[in-house]
């Protein structure tokens, strides 16, 4: 089986021009992820876990290496793909889940959650219905659905964000600590949704501060600590 994502020799560092110096975030990372596989990234703070996720999503520009992604349109190297192709893939096949909502002034919670479906061409009533279903699933009270999330508490914003990020199935899902500071019910809903997506074949790479939340989903652990053996079998790891 061809992996959904095949990372080869990926490196990323930052140059800070005002300091006249640069530093490496990670270098020469290689691993592959199959459909329906869940890979946990591990390593101390600063080992480059979030940086790796952002580099795969292309919020950060990689400096060397390849990221071969099997898109519905054939294989493409995400490290070198044109910006317009990346925009397209983000709208259709690659999702990124963080704990932070990017709220916009005067846009309701349900409209924000429905937006990925609207962009994919779904009619507004149907998209809103689906959005409300996921808001409910993640435990956002129905009185808040038409309200503007800019004024919500951190926890409620996070639930809106999860509903939005997970409303559509993706081929590849990048997860950056989505469970941090979530209440127990929302965490359970998130884990159920991830299990469903995994069963549908979504490949996932995640960073979790408390991996216990998703322990039964993890197939493999990649340790980004410098000089650590890169891959460990699932059974060997105390998560």
């Amino acid at each position, binding site marked *: 089986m061809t992996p959904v994502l095949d990372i080869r020799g990926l490196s990323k560092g930052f140059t800070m021009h005002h300091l006249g110096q640069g530093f490496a975030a990670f270098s020469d990372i290689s691993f592959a992820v199959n459909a329906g596989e869940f890979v946990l990234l591990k390593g101390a703070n600063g080992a480059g876990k979030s940086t790796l996720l952002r580099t795969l999503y292309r919020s950060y*520009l990689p400096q060397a290496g390849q990221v071969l992604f099997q898109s519905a349109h054939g294989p493409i190297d995400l490290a070198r793909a044109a910006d317009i192709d990346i925009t397209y893939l983000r709208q259709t096949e690659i999702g990124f889940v963080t704990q932070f909502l990017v709220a916009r002034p005067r846009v309701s919670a349900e409209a924000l959650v429905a937006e990925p479906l609207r962009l994919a061409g779904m009619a507004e009533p149907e998209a809103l219905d689906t959005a409300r279903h996921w808001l409910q699933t993640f435990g956002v009270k129905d009185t808040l659905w038409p309200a503007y999330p800019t004024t919500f508490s951190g926890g409620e914003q996070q639930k809106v964000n999860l509903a939005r990020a997970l409303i559509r199935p993706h081929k590849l899902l990048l997860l950056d600590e989505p469970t941090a500071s979530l209440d127990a019910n929302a965490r359970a809903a998130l884990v159920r949704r991830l299990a469903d997506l995994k069963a549908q074949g979504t490949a996932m790479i995640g960073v979790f501060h408390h991996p216990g939340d998703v322990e039964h989903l993890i197939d493999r652990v990649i340790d980004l600590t410098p000089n650590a053996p890169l891959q460990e079998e699932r059974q060997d790891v105390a998560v």
Partner: protein
Amino acid sequence: MTLTLDAPRIVKTAPLVQIRGVNKSYGSVVALRDVAATVYPGEVLGIVGESGSGKSTLLRMMNLEETPDAGSYTLDLPDLDGNLFDLDRFARRMLCATRIGIVYQNPHLGLLMRHSSSGNVAERLLVAGERRFAVLREKAREALAASEFPLERLDAPPIELSGGMQQRVQLAKAIALEPALLLLDEPTTGLDVSVQALVLDTLKRLQRDRHITMVIVSHDLGVIRTLADRVMVMRRGEVVEVGLADQIFQDPQHPYTQQLVHAKL
């Protein structure tokens, strides 16, 4: 240091806007130096840079108000071939009236301040050849409604309106003919923060519901971040960096872009 990106492989659509090799000097002052830009259909390109970076000059060129010393500009539209900078005055005026909309920071540049708001919008339709009064009025009304202008004020002249409302009239005029390209020059600068949010939301809605291709110039990085898919950074008449909006803000490459992004509050 970073990898060179490939040409698009998945998105097969041709760019709507292609600008190449644009140079412009005013006397000894170089306003634009070898500027290139590409905008895909439905995309929002943000242009940022300090005063004097050439960003507004470039936008005025896209509206064919100015001609460069050298360079080419094409729009991928039916019946439109060749370098638009070569068009004569009449053809330019027609193209701008029918296919390109613009919203200026200063509403005086875009509106007749003492004519009615609906008249301002209808004027655009008249230039394009519409003569039936009922159609003019209905289309003007539709465009103003899409810009979320309060319809009970249709006949009020812009001079009697607030800054935010004036921008909505400009926007209605710009989109009345469903332009292929919408140009926005600091559309929210000088507005109250709450009004700014309303105008931004209207623009976002137009982008989502009508898939209008937009180029927005602003020195307000928050505005660019909210609206743009891709960002082009200009300095002293040159393009120093182009990239996905989140990449420009999170992983700026050029020293000037780093300075600009880190200066944001």
